[in-house]
């Protein structure tokens, strides 16, 4: 077809004798023979088994302490108080007590967890303006329509950061005290470096400062409706942690995939005794600034303290899944071997 009629003679229209056109390309035709499949199954079973055991041992080394503080102790008072819509925005401070039986060795990570909070709703997730958060001034003043109805306040001022995600930012704060022999010692928490590198350095940027203060840059914008402080005053202690690059904001803005999730709050600073080796066993008091209302959507709030290994926090599913898979593969392999040995032997032979 469409070939230049160069060749005269009776074979002018003869198709090319190329391996491709004649479908004779050299090829590898693998086949599922007993020689390949059965060893593969045993090998898989073995690998999974080893992985499972190794992971299980690793996971055993991690420790995790969880505490649901939604209505725990004093906090039930705050819980009741926030039930009344009119009290929203009023701060309520409560303390809860946490007993740690065994010391948490190594780096200890402090998480807050939410249950039944749907950060993964489509409209919720869309309700943000990454252009604004990366510091684009046009977007700062004209938030994307996706942020509706959290794009402008009643006065028509653009909200920064706009959208439902930012608006619903978790705003409880925690102070941890270690009751060392009756005298409470404040547990030092690092509240920085708890977000992805790319988030902190690429995805979230404050608008260009041009020698202005952050407050001036954000002038003409309103704080999100549910917020108590504007975005440029989120961290009262560290000016460089304010605005869109506030770590807590960044952590919150990375939406969770599932309705029950935990987010990093801080990491134990192991500079001073008694925390150089982690958290010692004993009683801890946690002072909570209880602001985030969960009761109306039947959510729960919790605190999580864990230690980590190379592959992350405590996660029993993975090693167990590997072990189960390995035993199933082994079972299948044995069954296949038996079947092959007993019944299948003649199947492949085609001698008459």
């Amino acid at each position, binding site marked *: 077809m469409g070939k230049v009629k160069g060749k005269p003679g*009776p*074979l002018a*229209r*003869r*198709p090319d004798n190329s391996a491709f*056109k*004649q*479908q004779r*390309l050299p*090829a*590898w*035709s*693998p*086949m599922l023979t*007993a020689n390949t499949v059965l060893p593969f*199954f045993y090998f898989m079973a073995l690998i999974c088994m080893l992985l499972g055991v190794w992971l299980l041992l690793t996971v055993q080394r991690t420790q995790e302490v969880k505490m649901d503080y939604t209505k725990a102790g004093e906090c039930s008072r705050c819980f009741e108080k926030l039930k009344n819509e009119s009290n929203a925005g009023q701060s309520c401070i409560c303390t809860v007590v946490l007993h740690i039986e065994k010391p948490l060795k190594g780096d200890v990570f402090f998480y807050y967890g939410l249950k039944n909070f*749907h*950060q*993964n*709703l*489509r*409209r*919720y*997730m869309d309700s943000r303006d*990454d*252009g604004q*958060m*990366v510091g684009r001034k046009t977007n700062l003043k004209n938030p994307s329509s996706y942020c509706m*109805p959290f794009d402008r306040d009643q006065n028509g001022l653009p909200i920064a950061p706009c959208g*439902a995600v930012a608006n619903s930012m978790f705003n409880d704060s925690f102070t941890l005290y270690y009751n060392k022999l009756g005298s409470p010692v404040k547990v030092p928490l690092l509240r920085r470096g708890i977000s*992805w*590198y*790319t988030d902190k350095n*690429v*995805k979230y940027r404050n608008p260009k400062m041009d020698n202005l203060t952050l407050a001036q840059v954000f002038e003409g914008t309103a704080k999100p409706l549910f917020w108590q402080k504007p975005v440029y005053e989120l961290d009262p202690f560290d000016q460089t942690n304010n605005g869109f690059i506030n770590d807590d904001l960044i952590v919150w803005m*990375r*939406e969770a*995939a*599932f309705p029950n*999730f*935990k987010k*990093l709050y801080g990491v134990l600073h192991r500079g001073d005794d008694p925390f150089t080796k982690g958290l010692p066993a004993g009683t801890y008091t946690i002072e909570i600034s209880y602001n985030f209302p969960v009761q*109306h*959507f039947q959510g729960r709030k919790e605190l999580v303290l864990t230690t*980590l*290994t190379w*592959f*992350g*926090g405590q*996660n*029993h*599913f*993975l090693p167990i899944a590997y072990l189960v898979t390995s035993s199933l593969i082994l079972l*299948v392999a044995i069954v*296949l071997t038996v079947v*092959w040995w007993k019944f299948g032997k003649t*199947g*492949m032979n*085609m001698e*008459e």
Partner: protein
Amino acid sequence: MFRKRFPPEEERRVRANDREYNEKFQYASNCIMTSKYNVITFLPVNLFEQFQEVANTYFLFLLILQLIPQISSLSWFTTIVPLALVLIITAVKDATDDYFRHKSDNQVNNRQSQVLIRGSLQHEKWMNVRVGDIIKLENNQFVAADLLLLSSTEPHGLCYIETAELDGETNMKVRQSVSVTSELGDPNNLFSFDGEVVCEPPNNKLDRFCGTLYWRDKKYTLTNQNMLLRGCVLRNTEACYGLVIFAGPDTKLMQNSGRTKFKRTSIDRLMNTLVLWIFGFLVCMGVILAVGDAVWEREVGSLFQSYLPWDPPVNNFLFNAFLSFWSYVIILNTVVPISLYVSVEVIRLGHSYFINWDQQMFCSQCNTAAEARTTTLNEELGQVEYIFSDKTGTLTQNIMSFNKCSINGQTYGEVTDPLGPQAKRLDFTPFNPLADLDFCFYDDTLLESVKVGDSHTHKFFRLLSLCHTVMSEEKSEGELVYKAQSPDEGALVTAARNFGFVFRSRTPGTITTTEMGRPVTYTLLAILDFNNIRKRMSVIVRSPEGRIRLYCKGADTVLLERLHPCNQELMNITSDHLNEYAADGLRTLALAYRDLSEDEWEAWSESHRCADKASDCREDRVAAAYEQIEQDMMLLGATAIEDKLQEGVPETIAVLSLANIKIWVLTGDKQETAVNIGYSCKMLTDDMTEVFIINGHTVQSVRQELRRARERMIELSRTRDGGKESGMEGWGEAYFSGNGLRGGQEGDGTESGGGGGGGGKPPQCPPPPPPPPPPPPPPPSPPSNLMDNVSGEFALIVNGHSLAHALEADMETEFVSTACACKAVICCRVTPLQKAQVVELIKTHKKAVTLAIGDGANDVSMIKSAHIGVGISGQEGIQAVLSSDYSFSQFRFLQRLLLVHGRWSYLRMCRFLCYFFYKNFAFTMVHFWFGFFCGFSAQTVYDQYFITLYNIVYTSLPVLAMGIFDQDVPDHRSLEYPKLYEPGQLNLLFNKKEFFICITQGIYTSVVLFFVPYAVLSDATQSNGVPLADYQTFAVTTATALVIVVSVQIALDTGFWTVINHVFVWGSVGCYFSIMLALHSQSLFRIFPNQFHFVGSAQSTLLQPVVWLTIALATAICIVPVLAFRFLKLDLKPQLSDTVRYTQLVRQKKRKPAGRSVGSAWRGVGMVAEGRLGARGGSRRSGYAFAHQEGFGELITSGKNMRLSSQALANFASRHSSSWIDTLRRKKHNHTHTPPSASGECSPAPSCVSGSLPPLSNSSSVLGGSQETPIEEETVPACDVQPVPAVSTKTHPAAAAGPESAAPPGPAQASSSSVLGSSAVRCHGGDSPGGWTLSLGSVQEALFGWKGFAGRSGASNSQGLPPVAKETSHIE
């Protein structure tokens, strides 16, 4: 389009030379436009057409949905990118097609024609020709429009046209102008012609025209005989003038070029059903999720409103759920991705190219490669169950060659040693300057005999040069061209010509020949013409010396009866020869002469004249007169003509029937010819349990014959099975005790009354059954399920007139159940319409895929109505090819087309579809599971770019590569093991069950792909403590796991890893990672922060060991069960293909010395057989197989045609031929003289058998699979004299005892003795089972497992058996 606005024409009025008058009616101009678009209309029209496709509209609808922000769960580009891609590809294809149409339109519209304008001829483009113009045509010009022929340069206003482009017939037709206009002659007269034609409106009937010419106050009736239609070519006519009646789109040619029926494959239909089901499934999913959404919004979402208020227009959960439904429809629509249809088209296109490129389907003799003219049917080639084949030109080459002859008891033309050095072709030129160079003959003894002047030989060839109705044309001295009415006659006259008896020319009263270089003119006294009843023709000539002699040639059956008694001895010898020839599958004729005295001639001539003039029963009387003179003849000898089979036909048929494909031959030929060919191409074999002939002329008799055939089948298979099936036996018992054999015998009476019409009455009229058969009480026809398990090999031969009855509505099922129980069905004397009806019958009753193969215009209807039409690009014009889906030039390519290309296509398409549905379910259903965790908010699991690219980039190429290149077994294996074809026929590889398995697997995968990452990630954290449960990490993990799982799956599915597969599979995975990293890169984010907000997710996620462990776990869980199931299936229930593949893999080939490798042997033989008719057993004599027509002799003697060129004459008769097939056959005379393109064609000596026979290796399983007899038994000739009934006995319904019966009864004694004789011969051949010294015939026998006998034994006694047709009538 414009013309549609006018009311439809009621009648057409055209006035010659009056443009103003004609313009009033606004007839279409002669400008044709087959193109659909122009530059401006292309875009809108093409888009409009494309959106008429349901799929495209559906995706457009989705696109619109996505533009509604409340619903849009995906960005608009996830749909528009693939949609645009599809639309653009299709548009480009349409545009190219249309461009070429424009080009050809332009070319046609700008052809020049000469138009008579104001009394002078002017050159005008075709498109400027108007209705009512008079145009002049010259020889070999195309007719520009539908013209009324006004005058021509030939006498009587005749002109000749070739209608090949119109109806595919290559023969010429004659047209004549109305006498009054034929005198007009030159342009000046024509200019003053102002007749007005009133005629029917434009229509598409090619063979009909009715109109009236009004001129000078007189009316003249116009018919199709006066018309020259557009598309015809003027031949043999210097020039002619015509009046344009229909122009441009109104011409019959254009009216006929209607839309061809669009064929869809069964996979297509299944796919459409499945797509509909999937839509249903989609809606169900949507409803479930919408209900979930309603519940969730009510229970949870309403409470969550402070964080996420409902959209202002949405203020209740029900409406929210409604919107959610549509949102889910959008995100779940990828279960039917738009790329499905495109990919299927691409794969089919690829397969089509492979067909076009296949060197093994290239015919070097005709320089044609196979061509897939339709690209959409390939996979159906792998599912064919019924093949309907034309005979002439398809199975046979339609070349007749003079092969052997017997002169005065001496046989010539025998190639003594087929294995010896190639016999030298005789060179006639030194001896005879007039010889036809293309004539092949190998036996020089005959030439010697001519040279020495043997009188018998001379008489023999003189007869051949005189007794015929061939016309000759001598363009220049010595350059003779014969126009024979039938190719057989041409072959005979050519033979005579080469042996020195050259027929030069004829006039109504004379025949001029050159005998041994000496011109002789005979006076032709009478031609006693051929007809089907007489089966002979004679001429009576007076030699220059004044001797009157009658020369006769005819079917041996009729001729031998009319010999002078003194010929007895010669007759016996000749008869033996005839038997021999017939056994070789040659068409035979006996030749005889009779010297007449002047008185005898006078007397007979008088009585003949008398008979001729008789007004009543003229035909009977003339026949009687002929009978009277054709007596006491002296036998001269016999001729044997080979109707060359195409190369490799028997082998192909054998292989195809091993592949369980039923082959029906539908031919216009006579029964004898058809049966002969059936034997020579191994459709019918002597192993067959029984051959039934349905020959009845009435509904009743046909019904009875069918019924009897079924009874016999049941009975025979019952005896064979030895009552294994008790149910059947019981039934048979009950039935046969009632009116079993008796009824059958009574039926014979009717049959012989009907079938033996040859007894003396014209076969057209149904003969009154002499003793009216007592109508047997119609027994209940055996239930068809009973017929389904009839075992044994039967064949059915149906005559055209019986077929007409069998196709009637009430007999259809009976016919189908009978015919389908037979291994071979041959329908003879079938009209083109019946061919199509038979195909339709099987299509409707059997629901099987049918393939029709043919080469002539008479096959077009069946080619069009079958699922797949194959055209043989042979000698009969291109009509069949044009309407076909596939075309190639040799019948034997069919096996490669079906068993290799078709099988592969089917396999690939099925694997493709399975995988395609799997991968999309795996991909899409993850959203469904996620719905339960994201509050049914139609949140997608993946990044939107992943959704966009998944189907068109990440997973498309590996599956396309598999769909295009995959092979389970190599091509030669699928030819060796035709059984491999069966899964396609049974529709095993992709059906609803397979589909459910695929989607179940897909859903299982989606469950794993969602829940494993969910369970792992919801708790896991990165090694720096940051939780992994964020949406983007989850999305990346799932997507990566998905890509890896489906890639592993395609790797498992791919059975044939070429470089391309490797590149595509690895490339796709690599592509996924690089594209993902690019999309998640900082630079893109900096430009479009809102579009690429996944920045950094890829790096951050893929660096986590947990993620990789998760992916590995998910992959293992997804793949291990699949692997286990496949292994089990392979181990416990291996398919033949698996086994073949396995053996291929381990190359473990045991060789048994006893057996033969059929698979490779047939190829060797195929090359050698060289289109020769294989030797065949049984004593079947070819009849007078002329495609002769009565009335030709009369035409010659009357001299009516003599002013015409002789070529036109041959066609002249076609006008009174009602049968299309005869017309077609008659034009074959062209081919007897077409030079064979390669010398190989005329070398019947298979010189290289020994060289090309492969070493013996054992793969007899091939045959063993479908034939009861093990092959070893066949290679060892049957030395014990176990008479196996020949066909002659089999057709004998009285011989009910079955195959084991002893020697056949009385009338067939001759055959029984020949059986004995032949088995002796076979014994002899059997001494060398190695086969090296066996003749080709024996090799073929051994290979195809039929036992031949008779023929070759010279000992069998004289009385040749009548041809099969006769036999039925002889019984009783």
